[in-house]
């Protein structure tokens, strides 16, 4: 039951939420569209560089999405449907990149497989140039296959094992069963996973800025326009070119694939009895998973080694000077921590409140709140960053170089995940609890405080942690908003890498990783099963 709103404090709260969404989500988006002149849009078609960049983005979109989805599916199938040894380890390794800054993969691979690469040059004596589309392809595949894995693991798990039993009972075995039953049932999930990966690949800024060299994609080109030419209009046009396909993918994923899903929730889940996998198949799957897992682990090995050697590629002696330097004198790290903590908390609070209002109350603008809270999930970080930089760095609102602008962008870029978690949580909490409380005389806000909040503590905490980690690891959102005054760690890493200060960059990345993994570990320790990340 949804109640029409009559109480005053509640109306104020709704007003506040709607105002924030208008000011910090809608307004920056609109600004990006209105900043360039009509001429800027028309000239895109005559600009060979823009067109080539767009084609590059498209090419990476296809390549990386295909490879990441494919590998994600192999992992998901191996983990849920086979008795391949090491499944738990594979799953664990797959989850690591999800808590790490995405550009870290590129950075580490430059150190491992580049011209001065530890493996390519150091161990194999090869002269390999990793910069370019191929390096980007590898990095994006490794960075984003975990997303595909996570979605498809859920999908495969929710396929009733009874259907596979039925197939086997009627004569389908091994690959036939996979071809006629398992895969067709997973297909909508695979499509959904591919679309999610595609959105991330398209929006990816960190990997291409580090590893793609002269091969520019829309996200990096937008940055170059501003950085090199101070051409904000051009950057805006490029980011719109990025936004449109992103939105299309997002809505296809949400409204079309979601509806085609075969996943049926039945009360009684039979005990899944994993069938013995064929010997050849087993070793093929094992080899693929082990190889990919190794590539994932190498990312971390590279970073750790990088943080502790004097000079990458020429002086392999041990040192702690980078780590010490970071730990004692990095204002970027302090910024990262404080901004992300504030943003993570505010974001979780904001999105839970919005989720509460949308799922429990009836008020004008409810659909607007629902839509706008989901919207940031479809926005490439670059796009939102440009939006904030156009919208909030000129009078009347000039936040140029302030902490506020970074924090605000982090808050509103992250509301979607929290909001979705919140909606899910409120769906599970029976409205009859609040109805009972209301029946006993409690007002709306009192119900929220005394009934709903205790019940959504877990989801709130999860979305706080998730927002915090996403904020502390993001680069794309803040890259347009950072100056020397408010720079955060990711921004500083980008600059250090491009200037060749690998040791310091690696040390800083390692510290970020420690913070991020430590937070997860701590959260799990304190809250146990109550925290759940990734409701994709």
């Amino acid at each position: 039951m949804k109640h029409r709103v009559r109480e005053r404090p509640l109306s104020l709260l709704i007003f506040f939420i709607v105002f924030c969404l208008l000011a910090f989500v809608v307004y920056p988006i609109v600004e990006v569209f209105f900043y360039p002149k009509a001429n800027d849009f028309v000239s895109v078609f005559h600009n060979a560089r823009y067109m080539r960049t767009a084609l590059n983005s498209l090419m990476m979109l296809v390549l990386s999405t295909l490879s990441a989805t494919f590998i994600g599916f192999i992992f998901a199938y191996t983990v849920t449907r086979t008795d391949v040894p090491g499944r738990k380890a594979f799953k664990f390794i797959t989850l690591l990149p999800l808590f790490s800054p995405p550009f870290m993969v590129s950075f580490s691979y430059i150190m491992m497989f580049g011209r001065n690469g530890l493996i390519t040059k150091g161990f194999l004596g090869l002269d390999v140039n990793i910069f370019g589309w191929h390096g980007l392809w590898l990095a994006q595949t490794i960075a984003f296959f975990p997303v595909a894995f996570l979605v498809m693991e859920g999908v495969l798990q929710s396929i009733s094992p009874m259907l596979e039993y039925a197939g086997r009972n009627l004569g389908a075995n091994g690959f036939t069963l996979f071809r006629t039953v398992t895969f067709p049932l997973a297909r909508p999930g695979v499509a959904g996973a591919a679309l999610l990966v595609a959105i991330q690949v398209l929006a990816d800024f960190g990997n291409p800025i580090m590893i793609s060299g002269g091969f520019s994609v829309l996200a990096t080109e937008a940055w170059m326009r501003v950085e090199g030419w101070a051409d904000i209009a051009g950057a805006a046009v490029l980011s719109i070119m990025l936004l449109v396909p992103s939105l299309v993918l997002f809505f296809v994923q949400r409204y079309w694939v979601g509806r085609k899903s075969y996943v049926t929730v039945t009360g009684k889940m039979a005990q899944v009895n994993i069938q013995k996998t064929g010997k050849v198949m087993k070793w093929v799957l094992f080899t693929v998973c082990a190889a990919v897992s190794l590539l994932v682990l190498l990312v971390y090995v590279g970073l750790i080694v990088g943080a502790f050697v004097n000079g990458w590629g020429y002086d392999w002696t041990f040192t702690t000077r980078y780590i010490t330097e970071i730990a004692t004198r990095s204002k970027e790290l302090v910024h990262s921590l404080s901004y992300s903590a504030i943003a993570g908390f505010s974001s979780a609070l904001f999105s839970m409140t919005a989720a509460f209002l949308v799922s429990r109350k009836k008020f004008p603008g409810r659909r607007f709140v629902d839509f706008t809270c989901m919207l940031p999930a479809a926005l490439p970080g670059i796009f939102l960053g440009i939006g904030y930089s156009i919208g909030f760095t000129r009078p009347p609102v000039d936040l140029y170089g302030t902490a506020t602008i970074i924090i605000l962008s982090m808050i509103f870029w992250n509301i979607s995940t929290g909001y979705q978690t919140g909606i899910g949580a409120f769906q599970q909490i029976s409205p009859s609890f609040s109805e009972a409380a209301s029946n006993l005389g409690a007002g709306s806000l009192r119900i929220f405080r005394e009934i709903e909040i205790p019940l959504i503590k877990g989801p709130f905490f999860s979305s706080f942690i998730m927002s915090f980690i996403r904020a502390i690891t993001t680069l794309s959102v803040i890259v347009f908003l950072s100056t020397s005054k408010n720079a955060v760690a990711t921004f500083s890493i980008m600059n250090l890498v491009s200037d060749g200060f690998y040791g310091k960059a690696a040390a800083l990345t390692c510290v970020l990783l420690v913070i991020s993994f430590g937070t997860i570990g701590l959260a799990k320790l304190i809250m146990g099963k109550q925290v759940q990340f990734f409701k994709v």
Partner: protein
Amino acid sequence: MAQAHVIIREVSKCFGKTKVLDTISLEIEKGSFTTLLGPSGCGKTTLLRTIAGFYDVEQGEIFIGEKKVNDVPSHLRNAVMVFQDYALFPHMNIRENITYGLRIRKMPQDEIEKKLETTAGYLDIKNLLDRTPGEISGGQQQRVALARALVMEPEVLLLDEPLSNLDAKLRVSIRAELRQLQQRLKITTIYVTHDQAEALAMSDTIAIMKGGKIMQVGSPSDVYYRPDNAFVASFVGTVNFIDGTVRSVSDEGVEVETGGTTITVRERQPAGKPAAHPPLPGEKITLSIRPESIRIVEHPAPAAAFRDENVFRGTIKDYIFEGSSIRYWGEALGKELLIDVFNPVENALHTGDVWFRIDPERIHVIPQSIT
């Protein structure tokens, strides 16, 4: 002479530390309808799935026909299963669902068509073939699931609570239909249910299970009238238990003493089936008395008519009206008794002090050494 078609020999199985099947042995006749009946968690579904080949046989042996099937994969056992929630493939239409197994076997298209035609005819689902499972009702899904199994012409048909997702009315009508179809096709059928009424109505043989063990195997009337133990008696139908001691055994019947009163038992055994456990004098036993075997008499008739046996004074405490019968809660012999009166006369309820008469031929004796 009927021959055993499926033989289960000392089969045991554990899930982790719990023993879900405990040295089960059972022979199933060719062409018969056998029901595995028991409360949830008794192992009946596990046994069925083990026969189907979804679970490995950890200990013991299973034969289908002459062949030991322990290591035969599910689809080569010729035992096809109908699942509780039907497990219809949501990505295929009804036609594709039914013909799935035949297509996997690479049967020629015209033959598939012919078989589909026949089976869909049997089950009256020809008009559904182009729809998808999501578009048809539960009862129709049930028929399709059955068709998908029958079209394979299995030697053994395995049914896992196939009626449990249907509403009460539909369940009763499909129950009859399923039984008739099975009789017509003469296909060996193993049926799993927790519903004792369903088991009694459909089966040739019922195997009652509890805690991974078989408690009794017999015909519906065997398990209803002559339960081997108190569990079977109370699981199948409703029952009154009265504990007592055997005083004497003679041609006149068995005299049982309970709380200072004597109850006479003259249970009739069907021809060729001697009592499983004939009572011995001095033995501690439990009498199992069905509610419909007790009659309520307002005033006892002359002694001659009743031969004065098994008539006890008591009171009626409460009742519920169930349409074709009324169930009374009464008290006699210092115990609470359930009494069913069928074909009750409207506005003629028994109340207060009455007499109960227990039919001596309808009392079953269970030795306490077994319970």
